[in-house]
């Protein structure tokens, strides 16, 4: 029943303290399966597992909250089915991947498109993603059903949109109904079934009580209200609960995280609080600087000045020139002996231009770029694209081959080993004939024979089956071993195809009709970052960097006059703050709240970033955005105010 909250900033040692508790218990004879550890996300779960793996034997009960509830719903499916009749025809639940959820909702949005486009200026794909992702997720995190969500959103200053939100409600209810019928759970339904069906059952609570003696929660500041309900319930069932609360966290408000709610519920004014001062990932003066910067961003008058805190502040007119200057600076840092992995370039949006320029310049020094916020799409990998084109060639009914000669030319370069000129010529011939001509290379002859055979197959190809077969029979013989990028892209492609098939089996093909092609060829799907194979400079958005748990000796803050440094979690359809539990019902959402929220978001981000820098901060500012618009985000001004326009002579912080 004892609950301890460890409170501290980034780098104060909260996770280490939690880990020590864990290991002490284990060393004292507690079995690892008796300790439930909940961390904020996949990366944090992996880090936890790595930290305790050496000493802890037995199965580790380390999860993200969503991972945990998925496991529990699987394990206790019978108890859920007992109360939800619609689910009784399914032996096990299936979980709906977000991209499939988006496509399903997009289908439901279609009848309402005219209504949406009369009120919103947004692409249908974005609207569907906001309904399936943002609204549904955040409402569920706060325990709101679609009707309550629609009412709140309309009440908070958007009465003219009551009709619109009524349609959103209808879409979400239809989506929920189809998911129940299919026994497929998206995030919202999983959360609802777990918190409202499973957890309230006495037998399940008794099961939890017997199973766990200890509860450890890292990143309490990133938890959503529904999770906090659960933590409160479990902390009463276990012998001891220890939570770590980051005073500069709460970056996931866009997903419904409620750091203040967590603090009020578990921290404020309670016994059992352990405060960890300072930070190991920055020096005391930087610690104070981060605080001052955050206060300045939120409009407070800050008297203290921090000369020398910024090693260099580059100001250029054009963004492209700034990219050049930053990349040159990276080279100088490396020449001065800085380790690549100790340098991070932080940019509010990581665009191709920045990544490609840095990659090219650093490659000359044998240094790679590790992009934590990747921009490379699955279809940018020529082999993955060739597989898609091949799928279109073999299965014309899939309607993939809209790209014609260009795509076929690329296919012939990749899979038939033709030079670009010959490939272009024969690509054109193929596009006109609808089938491959005689090809002059051995690989080409193999490809042609394979396509003919694949086309003649009696049973229609399933997308994932096709991708897998083509990978094995066409791609593998060509490439020998797959490069990590190629492997990753093809894996992604295969994963998407498999997830589609699994969902289609449950929902029936009618739920998708021809939309599955979009799932395979979605232009927004990116290849997730893989670990670099060479020493690498890190490139990331602030959020991706903070989520990674990295800290660096040198942080280069790119494009600090961009408004992108002020997180915009309020969208045209979604407002996580209005859907939060502490939002006063009926209160209008005005510019006052909007500005405060954005400033608070930027302040949180900036404070946490400064505290992850143990060396120097270099700033890059450009007057014009990539769109040629003047920029005037307040961050540049705040830095100049506090740290001065020019760096101190030594230009570095003492480590």
């Amino acid at each position, binding site marked *: 029943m004892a609950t301890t909250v460890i409170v501290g900033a980034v780098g104060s040692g909260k996770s280490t303290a939690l880990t020590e508790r864990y290991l002490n218990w284990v060393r004292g004879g507690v079995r690892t399966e008796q300790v439930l550890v909940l961390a904020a996300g996949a990366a944090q779960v992996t880090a936890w597992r790595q930290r305790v793996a050496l000493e802890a034997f037995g199965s580790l009960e380390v999860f993200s909250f969503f991972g945990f509830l998925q496991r529990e719903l699987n394990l206790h499916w019978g108890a859920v089915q007992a109360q939800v009749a619609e689910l009784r025809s399914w032996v096990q639940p299936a979980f709906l991947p977000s991209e499939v959820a988006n496509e399903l909702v997009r289908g439901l949005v279609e009848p309402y*498109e*005219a209504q949406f*486009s*009369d009120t*919103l*200026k*947004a*692409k*249908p794909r*974005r609207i569907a993603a906001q309904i399936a992702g943002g609204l549904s997720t955040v409402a569920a995190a706060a325990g709101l059903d679609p009707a309550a969500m629609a009412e709140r959103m309309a009440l908070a200053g958007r009465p003219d949109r009551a009709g619109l939100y009524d349609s959103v409600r209808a879409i979400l209810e239809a989506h929920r109904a189809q998911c129940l019928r299919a026994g497929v759970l998206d995030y919202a339904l999983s959360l609802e079934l777990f918190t409202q069906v499973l957890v309230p059952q006495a037998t399940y609570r008794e099961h939890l009580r017997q199973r766990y003696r200890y509860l450890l929660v890292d990143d309490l500041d990133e938890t959503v209200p529904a999770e906090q309900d659960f933590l409160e319930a479990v902390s009463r069932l276990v012998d001891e609960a220890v939570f770590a609360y980051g005073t500069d966290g709460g970056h996931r408000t866009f997903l419904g995280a409620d750091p203040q709610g967590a603090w009020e519920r578990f921290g404020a004014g309670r016994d059992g609080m352990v405060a960890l001062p300072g930070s190991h990932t920055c020096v005391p003066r930087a610690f104070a600087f981060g605080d001052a910067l955050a206060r300045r961003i939120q409009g407070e008058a800050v008297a203290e000045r921090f000369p020398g805190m910024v090693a260099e502040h580059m100001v250029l007119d*054009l*963004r*492209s*020139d700034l990219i*050049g200057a930053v990349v040159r600076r990276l080279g100088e840092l490396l020449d001065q002996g800085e380790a690549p992995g100790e340098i991070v370039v932080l940019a509010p949006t990581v*665009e*191709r*231009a920045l990544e*490609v*320029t840095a990659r*090219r310049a650093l490659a000359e020094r044998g240094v790679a770029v590790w992009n934590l916020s990747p*921009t490379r*799409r699955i*279809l940018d990998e*020529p082999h993955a694209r060739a597989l898609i084109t091949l799928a279109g060639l073999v299965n014309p009914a899939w309607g*993939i081959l*809209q*790209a*014609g*000669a*260009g*795509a076929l*030319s*690329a296919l012939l*370069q*990749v899979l038939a080993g033709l030079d*670009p*000129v*010959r490939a*272009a010529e024969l690509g054109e011939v193929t596009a006109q004939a609808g089938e491959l001509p005689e090809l002059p290379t051995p690989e080409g002859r193999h490809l042609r024979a394979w396509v003919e055979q694949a086309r003649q197959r009696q049973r229609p190809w399933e997308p994932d089956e096709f991708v897998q077969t083509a990978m094995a029979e066409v791609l593998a013989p060509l490439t020998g071993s797959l490069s990590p990028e190629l492997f990753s892209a093809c894996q992604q492609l295969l994963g998407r195809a498999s997830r589609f098939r699994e969902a289609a089996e449950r929902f029936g093909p009618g739920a998708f009709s021809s939309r599955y092609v979009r799932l395979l*060829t979605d*232009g*927004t799907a990116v290849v997730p970052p893989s670990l670099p194979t060479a020493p690498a400079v890190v490139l990331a958005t602030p959020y991706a960097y903070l989520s990674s748990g990295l800290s660096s000796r040198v942080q280069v803050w790119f494009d600090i006059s961009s*408004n992108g440094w002020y997180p*915009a979690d*309020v*969208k*045209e359809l979604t*407002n996580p703050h209005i859907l939060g539990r502490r939002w006063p019902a009926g209160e209008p959402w*005005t*510019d006052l709240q*909007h*500005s405060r929220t954005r400033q608070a978001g930027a302040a949180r981000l900036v404070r946490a970033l400064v505290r992850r820098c143990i060396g120097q901060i270099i700033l890059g500012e450009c007057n*014009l955005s*990539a*769109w*040629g*618009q*003047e920029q*005037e985000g307040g961050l540049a001004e705040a830095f100049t105010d506090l740290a001065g326009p020019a760096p101190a002579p030594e230009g570095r912080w003492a480590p």
Partner: protein
Amino acid sequence: MTFALRPDQERVAAYRGGYMAVPAVPGAGKTTVLAYLAADLIAGGFPAPGRILIVTYTNSAVGNFRSRVGDFLEQRGLPRSAGYEVRTIHSLALRIVRERPEAIGWADTFTVADETTLGEILSRLTSGWIARNRTIWESMVREDLSGGFRSRAEEQWEERTRSLVRTLIQTFKSRRVSPQAAYTLSRTLPPDSALRWAADIYTEYQRELAALGAVDFGDLMLGAWQILNQDAALLARLQKRWTYLFEDEAQDSYRLQEQVLRLLAGPGGNLVRVGDANQAIMGTFTSAEPDLFRRFCEEPGVDLCPLTMAGRSSQDVIDVANELVRWTANHHPEHDLRSALLPQYIEPVPPDFEPANPRPDRYKIATRLYDTYNDELSELARMAGALLGRYPTQTMAVLLPTNAMVAVLLEQLEALGIPARTLGGPTDPERQRTMLDLLAAFEFLAAPHHADEDAFARFARWLPQTLLPPDELVLTIALDMGLAGEELAIAHHLALRLGLFLQDEPGFTLTEAAAHLRDELQAMGRFADTLYDRKGFKPLPGLVYVTTCHAAKGLEWDTVFVGALTRSEYPAMRTDKVRSELWFLPDDRVNPEAVAVAELDALLGGDPGADPVALAKLDVIGERLRLLYVAVTRARENLLLSHHRQDRWEKKAHPTLPYMSLKTFIDRRKSQEGE
């Protein structure tokens, strides 16, 4: 160097707050005095903690203002960029919307659609509408036309219907009429009302744009107005940010734009509007309403501080400009047009003030008559070339009424090997070079088997890169070419646009990307202009600027040729033909836009006037008079006015009436000079 204020500028520079109107004659140095005033206010701490917002019309004007204010601040020992912002009106609207796009239902990723996209959507929707309503649409064409005339009429009518619909949709927006309201309102009109057609298309047009996550410029201004209106807290925040508002070229404001600026200034706020009603020449192109500025000047509580002195031109040029005003106000045979130019006369700068008016050693104003249109253009080209050789340090321009004439003259100059460039029209090819090079590379790489040897030599080095994603390929080629500065920025921007395009069209490869690049040329040209113009613009000696009179606004040259002063280009009488009137429509509908806008104003409770077609014709004629005034006042000391006797279709051409009066005036002065 310290700047000495002229007596008329002193009053303006003494401004410290409230509403002020500054009607300024051409060449009065309004940029200078406004920049001086801005720096003075900033130095005095008046805008703090806010800033001065200067709104002007073109990117080059933004650059010019920024450079002047920066200079004045620097002279006072202050940072060059502290305490003020300069924006075009569209950049201001964008800035306001970007504060809270979600508040009006816009995705924060919204884009401003380029002309090609807008044109394609409108063209398709209009053609679809015509196909569905052919009988009504055809019934508008004069009944007496048949055979070849009728088919030509219908062909032109279809073309004009597109621009008509476009204008009317923008009119709905400038009057804040939503698609739903437009539809409902227009149902009371007869089926042959063009306003009713436009209302039908308006809804579909807005839906298509919305589904692309895009807006047009009309939406942008409307969106800014909506945001400011619906959120008092945001308005208050922006009022705190921009404590002073200066509007340049206020005579070109349109209704919604004026409303946005008034909202931002607020009652009791600080608003300075500078303009010249005699230079209001944008009404035919935009929804500009010159009367708005005239009314502002007369508004109670507005301090009126005219700038009447100008050091730009010689006394002789000033006399010609003043003569045009005098003749119009007192002798224009059409009485209704006597108010087209306000009786606001240019005075020379008093001695000892800078810049002093040029003092040529002789009378340097002339008129010329040529036999044909072609003769006139050839002779202008020849004369410009000759003068360029004789006065290599002087600046020179040929101002013509249409882009078509500009293109012909540019060709002739090129053939003669005379360096020339244009302004305001399509982007200068030099600025497009990066884009055209990248396009050529893409077209080669997409189909190398169809390429010629020259393309092979230029682009074959990138054949091994053809498997790169198109946006990455652009960046790779740019890096390989060693691009820098604006050229690199253009390549980066192109890669960004291509990347966004590929999100929507993931299946597209090099072939389609090359086609897309061609479609993007116009939008990229605008981006290039934004970049190149950001540092301001000043004509250079050593080349001939050939431009429309519209694009010459705000500029000056030592020598100016104003050509094609014929009645068809500069109609001056009700009996003259005007281009906005369509020959194939019945007399009472000859200007369908005017009829439709009058219908809309009537539906909105306004007074559209008795005969909208006649009123619209007077507006057009008045605007052409002002265009002539603008053209004449571009000259510092050499001015040549010319016309031709036979047009390019070999029909007889007559000089426009105001030219005739000016010719009489000039001839008299020349003969006096001779004496």
